[in-house]
């Protein structure tokens, strides 16, 4: 693994009014690493993820991308940051006014100034990769949840990002569709994509992640390898959480 971190988080804090959502977060993401962030609801996992690509502005602390403070980014640098750090949302957020193909083509054409032909070629290639090339010309509302999320992943990939953020990508899916989305994500991880995944899918975390971070009450309470985290958790809160989750499964 190369030793220059892609993302560094230092003493990150985020308040909404009087509510402290992130109290003090530190962490490093190395290129090619897959990090799964787990923890109870309301622990600040999603907020943490959204601070990485500046969808939320940190209250204090720093998020460094390749050593540069993202809070000091100009509008242009911010665009570049987001080009290189794609995001997949829990509720897909496909654009319902555009076809699947247009969903994929919009950003490459408008941001990367790609030609329509090149963008289309790229989009079709990506759709084939997620197994949805025959859905290119339909509108998102005719897709199943699993298909929609695979399109959303393809849309993020269309910008050739070096890193992908996943915000509970399978939480809004019917159980029988979870597998197809996780399969695509696993493939990405195997291809060397840097990924930060907020998830409740412990099986996926155990199998794919290099590192698992456990978050609760606005802190990262434990960072560990998947095996250690699930088999020998150190922090009592982690223990409690994992026993509950595994118990349910």
């Amino acid at each position, binding site marked *: 693994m190369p030793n220059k971190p892609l993302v560094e988080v230092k003493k990150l804090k985020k308040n909404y009014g009087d509510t402290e959502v992130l109290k003090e977060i530190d962490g490093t993401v190395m290129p090619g690493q897959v990090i799964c962030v787990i923890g109870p609801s309301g622990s600040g996992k999603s907020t943490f993820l959204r601070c990485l690509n500046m969808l939320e502005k940190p209250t204090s602390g720093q998020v460094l991308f390749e050593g540069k403070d993202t809070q000091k980014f100009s509008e242009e640098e911010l665009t570049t940051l987001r080009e290189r750090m794609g995001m997949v*949302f829990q509720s897909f957020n496909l654009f319902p006014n555009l076809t699947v193909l247009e969903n994929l083509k919009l950003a490459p054409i408008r941001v990367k100034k790609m030609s329509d032909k090149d963008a289309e070629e790229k989009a079709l290639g990506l759709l084939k990769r997620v197994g949805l090339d025959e859905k290119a010309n339909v509108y998102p509302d005719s897709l199943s949840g699993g298909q929609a999320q695979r399109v959303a992943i393809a849309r993020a990939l269309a910008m050739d990002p070096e890193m992908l*953020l996943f915000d509970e990508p399978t939480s809004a899916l019917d159980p029988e569709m979870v597998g197809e989305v996780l399969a695509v994500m696993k493939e990405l991880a195997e291809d060397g994509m840097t990924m930060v995944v907020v998830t409740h899918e412990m099986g996926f975390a155990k199998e794919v992640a290099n590192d698992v971070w456990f978050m609760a009450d606005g802190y990262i309470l434990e960072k560990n390898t998947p095996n250690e985290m699930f088999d020998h958790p150190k922090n009592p809160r982690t223990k409690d959480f994992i026993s509950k989750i595994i118990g349910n499964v």
Partner: protein
Amino acid sequence: MKVKGRNVLLTVMTLCLSLLFLFTIQPSHSITTTTAYAADNSLQRVKARGKIVMATSPDYPPYEFQVSKNGKSEVVGMDVDIMKQVAKDLGVKLVVKSMSFSNVLVAVETGKADVAMSGINPTPERRQSVDFSEIYYNGGQSFLINKTDAGKYTSKASLAHKIIGAQTGTLQYNLAKSKIPGAQVKGMDKNTDLVLALKTHKIDALGIETPSAEAYVKNDPDLKMIKSGYSLNKNDTGSAMALKKGSGTLVAAINKSITKIKAKGLPNQYLAQAGKYMKVNTHNTSMFHYWTYFAKGIEYTLLISAISVIFGVLLGTILALMRFSKSKIFHAISIAYVEFVRGTPLMVQVMFVYFGIGIVVNLPALLSGIIAVSLNSGAYVEEIIRGGINSVDKGQTEASASLGLAKTDTMRFVVLPQALKNIWPALGNEFVSLVKESSIVSIIGVTDLIYQLNIVRADTYRGVMPVFVAMIIYFVMTFILTRVLNYFEGRMKHAK
């Protein structure tokens, strides 16, 4: 990015403002009003222009009313004939401007017209705000009562403690109030409404000038006239022309003409002529006979609504852009505008544009009406657009931002196309409600459907039927419009 967006906004605003000015500035007599009091050149001005503008409320036969001559509607009556003679003596052409009675004096004060002539009594109160000519006709005061009450009400004394109707702001109103002990005086804007109130026993008697009373009695067998028995100063009770304060030279010229007209006994001739017109007019009171009136009303109502909705959308879009702009000033202006317009009645806004702004720039009634309704609609359209944009899920903006799309691109390709789906139907509803609400412009004399309805009521001496016809026409218009809009809305749902 920020600076660029603001520049675009500024350009759009400047463009719209200049457009507005192009529309509003009238080359004709816009400057004359402001210089009127510098020196009394009122006569000179009228002569130079070659025409004299008379404001009148043509719902007061036989003084002034509308007839249809060869399919064209025209204001006739004793007042018009006298004024024609005066204009002839001055060597200028006569232009008649119609509006509601409560507005004729304001029209003179604000320079919308040179002369107000509408059976006006030169009361001391009115003399404070306008100049009056000599009295050109003294008709005397009477009451109209229901024939069935003929035994009960025989004189002024028998009306004590009864409900007396009169036109608001008229001599008749003040007389009933001050000279009939214990009377409850009910004021309305139009004699047609008052006659209807009398016939439906909402009022017991109606104070009215004798010639008008005679006209109603001739045309309605259920009514009876009794003499008022007021003892009055002739100088207060006759009819005179009202002019803007400081129009001494024009008043003098008109007085000369009036003396001549009276000496020849022309007023009585004109009254007889008016009586003939009324017979023609009331010969056929079928609503079909008046279809051209209603058709013209529909045309104006639709015209005002359609133009206003277009300008309303333009203004509303600008206001919405300002509302979403990062500039605190634009944001505040937009909020203040919307709150103010939504917090004041359209009727007041219409009067403000026509009379208030009219002091600076002389706007024709139709244009004033369209401007007022557009300005009003803009505030509501802003709310529609804002609601439409806010209704788009926040996740859409975030997804777009996470792909690196600029804010303007996000607006253009993601948010607006989705917002439009919510905005279109609401804009359609706004158009439909403008068809109904624009009816208020009739108060400044725009010949929309309500205005025509009142003309038909005055002409036919039928109070209810024209109202019913107008109600059906409004319903048919809004019903058809709603169906058409639903059809397009349905099609929009399928094709994305």
